[in-house]
């Protein structure tokens, strides 16, 4: 794994360490996003009730938010992970100009895509994984939402709302 990982980053960087770092950032984003979803859901449930004379009752006219709206609150964590990957891309490119001009060697290689592969592989994979994790968490959250939310609270068009959230329309 060590030699394979080394081929995905600029020569001289520890490929395994870079992979572990990227994985740690993604897992941290996933954990934070999941906690966010849990907190948002819990708060939303609490907001459905009011206390009158010491008695807890449903707030009149209260509407339980769509699962998509709740899941969307986790997006910034995955966006931050993607930004970290873009930082890595900038770092990998600038590496070839620091301490020497190894860019001259990379641009002289017979393998045309070697420079692109070493600079882009990990950051692009990281961005894609961040997006996939967001989609997976959204799907999982909505499935749990539908399972644990009282049926009378669930507004129609939940998956339509998810589609709109993902596609932006």
């Amino acid at each position, binding site marked *: 794994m060590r030699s394979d990982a080394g081929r995905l980053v*600029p*020569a*001289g*960087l520890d490929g395994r360490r870079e992979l572990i770092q990227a994985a740690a950032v993604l897992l941290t984003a996933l954990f934070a996003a999941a906690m966010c979803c849990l907190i948002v859901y819990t708060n939303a449930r609490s907001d459905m009730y009011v206390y009158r004379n010491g008695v807890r009752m449903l707030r009149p006219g209260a509407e339980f938010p769509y699962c998509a709206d709740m899941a969307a609150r986790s997006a910034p964590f995955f966006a931050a992970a993607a930004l970290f990957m873009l930082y890595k891309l900038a770092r990998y490119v600038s590496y070839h100009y*620091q*301490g*020497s*001009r*190894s*860019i*001259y*060697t990379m*641009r*002289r*290689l*017979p*393998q*045309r895509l*070697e420079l692109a592969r070493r600079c882009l592989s990990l950051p692009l994979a990281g961005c894609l994984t961040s997006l996939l994790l967001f989609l997976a968490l959204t799907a999982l959250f909505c499935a749990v939402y539908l399972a644990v939310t009282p049926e009378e609270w669930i507004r129609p068009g939940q998956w339509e709302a998810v589609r709109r959230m993902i596609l932006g329309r």
Partner: protein
Amino acid sequence: MLEIKDVTKRFGSKTALNSVSLSLPRGELVGLFGENGAGKTTLMKCILGLMGHSGQITLDGERITRKNIARLSFATCEHSFFPDLSGAGHADFYAAHFPAFRRRRFEVLMDFFSLPLNRAPRSFSTGQKNQFEVVLALSQGADYILMDEPFSGSDVFNREDFYKVLLGILDNGETVLLSTHMLEEVDSFISRAVLLHSGRITGDISMSELEESGESLMDYVKRAWNYRSDRIRRAIDELSGEAGDR
């Protein structure tokens, strides 16, 4: 044969190379001389495809592309090694990417210069970095080895070692294009001198022709560049005159 035909390179309004034409057959050790800003580095980078240019550069009649780029190697005073990759790591990298990489030569040269295989060049001294850069260029397995002021910052013993290596290690078919300011150090072993001045070739002579003419390389260069040695005397006289007036 490396053929350079009418190569021009401009940076905005400044012309770094002006219709430069040059032929480099196999087996020559060519000194490329010129003042700072003459275009030596620009010429080498154009040959290697690191810069765009007009004109034509061919290797045995073919444009230089990914298919034949491995026949050219490069040692530069800016250094083109990977600062965090060990010597051994460099050998593996070069072997993986340059089919003709000469591992035995690499190991012998690393040993000759006492460079460690298990340390990254970031921790090397300036002289060691220069040596390592040259080792890589000589070991790549290229037919044409372009060296752009590879001794920049090296002491005289460092340079002496390099000359010994260069003379002893090159095969008959290997060509070196060596850009340097150290005229008097290299004139004993180069076979040809090419002079570049303000982006133009102003001189191109074989050392045997120069020897027959009885002129030293330094005198040839001064003549080609219209070097005016009297200007120093005049400047000193003017300064002395000012001091006298006070």
